[in-house]
């Protein structure tokens, strides 16, 4: 080091001259580049946050209207001559009347309604049939369900709230305009004007739509009646299967790997497998489910049990990884103390380590379940895209009935032509996101309240 002073200043660099306070050009350049670099970082974070905000706003703005629906109020006279010709009030007899038998009653009710309000469809250039088309085709089915449930009401006049046609509903949500109605074969501007008139008189209104949450899916041409009831039940059943299979198996596997496994090739093989399974594309699990559970074992297609099994295999790695982390975080002193007072290895694990690791295990499980709830691709391969109108039965038989699942229902709706289904799909996404939010909140609360720092 002594000869360092002997060397003169580096000849290749210009000698620094001027003040230390005033920055020279090179320093300024370096500072500018420093600020630019910071700015890039901020912009990147900004883009990430912006993407999240735009994503959520887009889904919310598209989906919130799905929870509102336009209804037509009407009082229907349940004509005994049409519904129960023999007057026996025999439920089997009443069931024989198809929805076609109920349509005239609705036509009647609408006629009277218009008359009492002093509205003549003719003035709008509409026939009675055109005016009737403003009510959803689902109305007759709704009426029939009501009569079968309450046969004693036959002969009475009952207040009903019928779904309006999807296009009329779209008009009040801004999806259908006078101009687009000109080109639309399903709705005419005259019908929209009549709807405005009815709305002014209070015969037509927009209300919260419980049916969206409870009802089953509906066919292509009646989007107004489609709901996510079957999908919610199907998703719920699958989550039950996942919970009851993945939690015990995952915990058992983690206990073995973390507490008992000797270090040998077999344990290594298991570990490698688990970390690889965590990164296998979800659709591959769908292929597995199709090949093994449906084609080989012969379980029915579209059944929640198959979906649950596939999702179990998919979430197992997640649960095992988080369970092992929380088992590892229990300090060895706990095990040593248990062994010291004469417990066996098994007792020390099951009586002491496992209960202490439980909050972490549950948090991991809930996060795994949330992941499984949003998964779509594997379910499509095991036939869950099928159109399901019937609610699955009660468990355990219900696990084998065809059902839908929330994310698959969303996909299913996006493939349909009527734009009203896009609104439904976004609405279903909102429900799905709410479920996920709740699950993650529970996980966070569990972690905050029960997690111990050793």
């Amino acid at each position: 080091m002594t000869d360092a002073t002997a060397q003169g200043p580096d000849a290749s660099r210009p000698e620094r001259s001027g003040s230390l306070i005033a920055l020279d050009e090179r320093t300024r350049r370096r500072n500018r580049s420093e600020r630019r670099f910071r700015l890039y970082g901020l912009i990147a974070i900004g883009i990430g946050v912006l993407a999240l905000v735009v994503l959520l706003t887009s889904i919310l703005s598209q989906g919130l209207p799905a929870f509102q629906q336009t209804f037509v109020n009407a009082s229907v006279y349940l004509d005994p001559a049409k519904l129960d010709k023999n007057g026996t009030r025999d439920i089997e007899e009443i069931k024989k009347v198809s929805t076609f038998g109920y349509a005239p009653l609705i036509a009647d009710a609408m006629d009277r309604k218009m008359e009492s309000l002093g509205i003549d469809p003719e003035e709008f250039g509409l026939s009675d049939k055109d005016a009737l088309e403003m009510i959803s085709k689902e109305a007759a089915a709704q009426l029939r369900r009501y009569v079968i449930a309450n046969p004693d009401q036959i002969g009475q006049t009952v207040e009903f709230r019928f779904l309006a046609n999807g296009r009329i509903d779209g008009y009040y949500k801004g999806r259908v305009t006078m101009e687009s109605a000109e080109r639309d074969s399903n709705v005419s501007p005259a019908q929209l004007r009549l709807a405005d008139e009815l709305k002014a008189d209070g015969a037509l209104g927009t209300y919260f739509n419980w049916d969206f949450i409870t009802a089953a899916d509906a066919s292509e041409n009646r989007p107004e009646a489609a709901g996510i009831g079957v999908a919610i039940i199907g998703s719920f059943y699958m989550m039950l299967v996942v919970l009851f299979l993945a939690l015990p198996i995952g915990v058992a596997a983690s206990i073995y790997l973390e507490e008992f496994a000797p270090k040998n090739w077999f344990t290594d093989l298991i570990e490698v497998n688990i970390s690889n399974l965590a990164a296998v594309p979800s659709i591959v699990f769908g292929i597995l489910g199709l090949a093994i559970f449906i084609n080989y074992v012969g379980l029915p297609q579209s059944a929640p049990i198959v979906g649950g099994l596939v999702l179990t295999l998919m979430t197992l790695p997640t649960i095992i990884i988080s369970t092992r982390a929380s088992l590892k975080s229990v300090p060895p002193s706990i095990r040593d103390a248990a062994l010291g007072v004469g417990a066996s290895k098994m007792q020390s694990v099951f009586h002491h380590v496992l209960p202490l690791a439980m909050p972490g295990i549950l948090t991991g499980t809930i996060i795994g379940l949330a992941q499984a709830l949003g998964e779509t691709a594997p379910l499509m391969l095991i036939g869950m895209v099928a159109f399901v109108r019937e609610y699955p039965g009660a468990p355990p038989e219900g696990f084998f009935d065809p059902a839908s699942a929330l994310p698959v229902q969303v996909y299913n709706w996006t493939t349909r032509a009527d734009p009203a289904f896009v609104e439904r799909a976004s609405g279903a996404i909102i429900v799905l996101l709410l479920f996920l939010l709740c699950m993650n909140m529970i996980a966070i609360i569990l972690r905050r309240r029960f997690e111990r720092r050793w």
Partner: protein
Amino acid sequence: MPLLWIVLVVLGLGLIGYLMGRSRALGSAGGDGRQLHSLPSYYGWHGFMLTVVPALLMMAAWLLVAPSVIENRAAAGIPDAKIAERGSRSLVMAEVRRTGEALDMAVAQGTMDEDMARNLRADFTDVTERLKATGAIITTTVDQPILEAAQNYRVMAKASNLYMSIAVLGLAVVGLVFAFMRSDKDFRARNVVEQGIKAILILASTIAIMTTLGIVLSMLFETANFFEQYSWREFFFGLNWAPDFRGNSELGMLPLLWGTLYISLVALLVAVPIGLFAAIYLSEYASPRLRAVAKPMIEILAGIPTIVYGLFALITVGPLIRDWIAQPAGFGNSTNSVITAGLVMGIMLIPFVSSLSDDIINAVPQAMRDGSYGLGATQSETIKQVVLPAALPGIVGAVLLAASRAIGETMIVVMGAGAAAAQMEQGLGAIINPFQAMTTVTVKIVSQLTGDTDFASPETLVAFALGLTLFVITLGLNVLALYIVRKYREQYE
């Protein structure tokens, strides 16, 4: 006997085993628990375990093996001509199974009695109509060979169920008696029970291996079937993807692979710079307050299901890009495009890249930064010239993991990228436009396997070959990435 009942009865026997084992052990010690080798409950659990576990294992094995045995024997009665007529054995067997179920339903509904269901002849009576009347799914006319096989199938299935009930319950009773005989005050019940529990734990942890094995075997098996019907050269090197369920399909994989890689590339071009810069800022510059807000916000993006991203691509990003960029500039007029899917997938991958890189950057020792500052470098110079080069292997690993995620992603490409395969035969110009629709491996797996599929035709089986290709590619990327990341971690530990 229905399965549920068998399980319940076995569990009931297990309960009896628990009580009997416990009381006999206690009895042998004259009611004094201190004389026993183990706690009394261990004798109980010993009884329960020996009763229930072998019986249920036997049941599982039976259920796994019996269907294929029965099917083979029922199929033996079907003439070869019949199989040739319907296309394949599995199709005929599906029909046999459906007919068998219909017969069961007819008996259950009382429209047929047991004798009739067993001896019905299709050439004399209108079986098809009668079976349809039960509400069963009968699609074709039931003829004599099918009906006969179905009747055999039914009888064998019933017999198998009966034998299984007897075997399972018998084994449970044998286990119970054995456990009872062994229960004695000097018997080391706890050791035996703990061995048993350990065996169950080992069994649970082998499920991961079995899953991998199941994935590989099921796909290998069907892929082998596919290559029997379709040349592997044309699959791996074919430039045209044009499946046709009437036959004469061209099933070249390269257009799909191109689409997959192209979309993944676009996604990585979005995700890697944004994710990396976000990670750098969060770990090197951000105040604790900003970090506490921004990091979870970005990580929410990772928790959102891919179907939400798919919908976002379909209803927001796709139309936006078409109306504002693609159409005015004359690049194309499709809402589905490579750029739509790539952009949205890139957003999905941001948290993936950023949180992995964040960990890796934080693992670079502080001493290296301090050394750089001591030499007069600014913070950004330190990051660019010291921290990033040190973290590079880890970041490469993170990018590879993100790439594997992108290649295997399904919903975003199903809803955002379209269904038309790249027109590779028309040269590079036709496949390089990012504003045109392009399909991927995962999209085609979905489209070939959903709906009514016939598991004998190459058009369906190709999905398994595609799946296997996808599995191998992602597995390779993952193994490589994990290897790199692990090597890197060791460097600084």
